[in-house]
């Protein structure tokens, strides 16, 4: 071993340690920034180390690639609004997975076209490579569909047809069958490209039937797959830092998937193959539905102004209406009057884990006012006004009261325990899941229809005139 290799390996080891420290920093908002700077430094060292690689013949494409990528990344990083964070994240899962798949394909091509000794392409290596390519390609297309759904290019409603699950399962089985065949016969070029195509196709078909409301789980799962594809790249190239970083990413996504599923009381299989909210017959409690009570803006303004404690419960509607700044303004006005303001955040509110927290933080809401489900639920009985902004399923009391409901058992924010509930809603329609929400019919609940941002801005004015 010469000095160069020691340097490269050292840079990778340093990067691995710094990545772990960086993620450890994320356990608290105060330490998170420094943690990320450590991780950034680690990344830089690893890249510099790699550029020292003695086998590299030409730097032209590397430098062009680094420049183009940095420009794209910087543009995305600076200009993407916080409301579009789920789309951006979906896109970056696609990029990461695509890069992993491409590295695998390039390696396979080099082996089977005589650029690298075919004898080195053993069963083990082919196994790692096949895994990388399969997972990488299906995550690429799956994430692109998720991106399309979040961006509104692809319909957010689940796309279902008869025999869908059987068709998808067969497709997956054939893909895995080809993968296993390739492990035994690595030189089978045609089966390889068929497997590649099927994996790309499967990614599309996997995500198409999943409804927008299930996006937090899908995002987490795709995150996990993209990470594992990177880890598999590490196995193929026998590169430890790649294995470590990929595994951290993969497990992070996995843990988030489990947390999101738990927050909806559903299993991952159910999310992937259940096509939730497509055509499920709704079993409501009979006779419970009455009239929704529409309230006037001024009444609510008075209620808010004379309240002791107000809890805001945001949902995806807050993001679509871009109402995060308006809610913050209303909160400030109330606080100046001595009202205690808190925010109750459900884990699956929004389209990705933590979505609401980021939006509210953007609007300068201090994080000490953001409360998790378990923390805020005991507070509702002493809350004067609970204001639901563009959230639906996460406050649906049926999840708690009606064992026949499709969302039975899902932990909810128990706003109906508050002394008064105000629901800001665009129209009288049902939520994304298509479920009736008994909360809207409770005597304690008042409905305020209209664009959330507009309504909140008007409320600010009205409260000031109380």
């Amino acid at each position, binding site marked *: 071993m010469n000095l160069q290799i020691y340097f490269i390996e050292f840079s990778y080891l340093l990067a691995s340690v710094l990545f772990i420290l960086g993620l450890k920093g994320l356990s608290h908002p105060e330490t998170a920034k420094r943690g*990320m700077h450590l991780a950034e430094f680690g990344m830089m060292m690893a890249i510099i180390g790699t550029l020292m690689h003695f086998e590299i013949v030409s730097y032209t494409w590397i430098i062009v690639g680094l420049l*183009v990528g940095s420009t794209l990344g910087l543009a995305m990083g600076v200009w993407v609004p916080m409301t579009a964070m789920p789309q951006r994240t979906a896109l970056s899962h696609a990029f990461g997975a695509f890069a992993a798949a491409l590295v695998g394909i390039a390696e396979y091509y080099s082996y089977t076209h005589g650029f690298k000794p075919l004898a080195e392409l053993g069963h083990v290596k082919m196994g790692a490579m096949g895994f990388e390519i399969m997972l990488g390609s299906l995550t690429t297309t799956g994430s692109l569909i998720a991106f399309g759904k979040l961006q509104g290019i692809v319909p957010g409603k689940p796309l279902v047809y008869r025999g869908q699950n059987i068709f998808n399962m067969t497709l997956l089985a054939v893909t895995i069958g080809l993968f296993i065949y390739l492990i035994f016969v690595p030189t089978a070029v045609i089966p390889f490209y068929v497997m590649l195509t099927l994996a790309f196709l499967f990614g599309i078909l996997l995500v198409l039937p999943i409804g927008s409301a299930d996006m937090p789980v899908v995002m987490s799962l795709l995150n996990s797959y993209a990470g594992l594809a990177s880890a598999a790249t590490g196995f193929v190239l026998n590169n430890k830092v790649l294995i470590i970083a990929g595994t951290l990413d*993969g497990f992070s996504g996995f843990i988030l998937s489990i947390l999101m599923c738990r927050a909806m009381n559903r299993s991952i299989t159910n999310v992937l193959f259940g096509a939730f909210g497509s055509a499920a017959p709704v079993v409501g409690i009979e006779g419970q539905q009455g009239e929704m009570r529409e309230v006037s803006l001024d009444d609510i303004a008075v209620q808010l102004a004379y309240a002791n404690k107000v809890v805001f419960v945001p949902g995806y509607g807050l993001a679509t209406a871009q109402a995060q700044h308006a809610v913050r303004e209303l909160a400030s006005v109330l606080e100046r009057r001595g009202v205690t303001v808190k925010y109750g955040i459900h884990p699956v509110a929004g389209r990705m884990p933590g979505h609401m927290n980021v939006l509210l933080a953007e609007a300068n809401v201090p994080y000490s006012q953001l409360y998790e489900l378990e923390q805020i639920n005991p507070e509702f009985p002493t809350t004067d006004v609970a204001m639901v902004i563009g959230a639906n399923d996460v406050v649906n009391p049926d999840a708690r009261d009606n064992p026949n409901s499709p969302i039975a058992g899902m932990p909810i924010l128990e706003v109906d325990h508050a002394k008064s509930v105000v629901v800001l809603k665009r129209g009288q329609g049902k939520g994304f899941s298509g479920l009736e929400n008994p909360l809207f019919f409770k005597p304690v609940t008042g409905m305020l229809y209209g664009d959330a941002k507009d309504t909140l801005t008007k409320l600010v004015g009205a409260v000031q005139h109380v």
Partner: protein
Amino acid sequence: MSSESMIAAIYVFALAAFLGYQVISRVPPLLHTPLMSATNAISGISLVGSIVIAGGTGPHHSKVAMVLGFIAVVCSTTNVVGGFVITDRMLRMFKRKK
């Protein structure tokens, strides 16, 4: 890949998985979005693999592999730079008090 290096790689994988579980389960839901973009940026480390392929290593190197490597470099770099920039931007917004 020899079986020894494969076994070593599996060791690394298993330990990283264990460590990842420990570290990431301590991240509060408050920071789940930054967590996702941070891990995304970090796993953009696959850039180091793409670089070596785009640079055409070895005595014989294939043009096809180099082109694929080049696209992979673009994708990974976008993730690394975009991921870190956006994570920083988000974390700067989280404040305890006004």
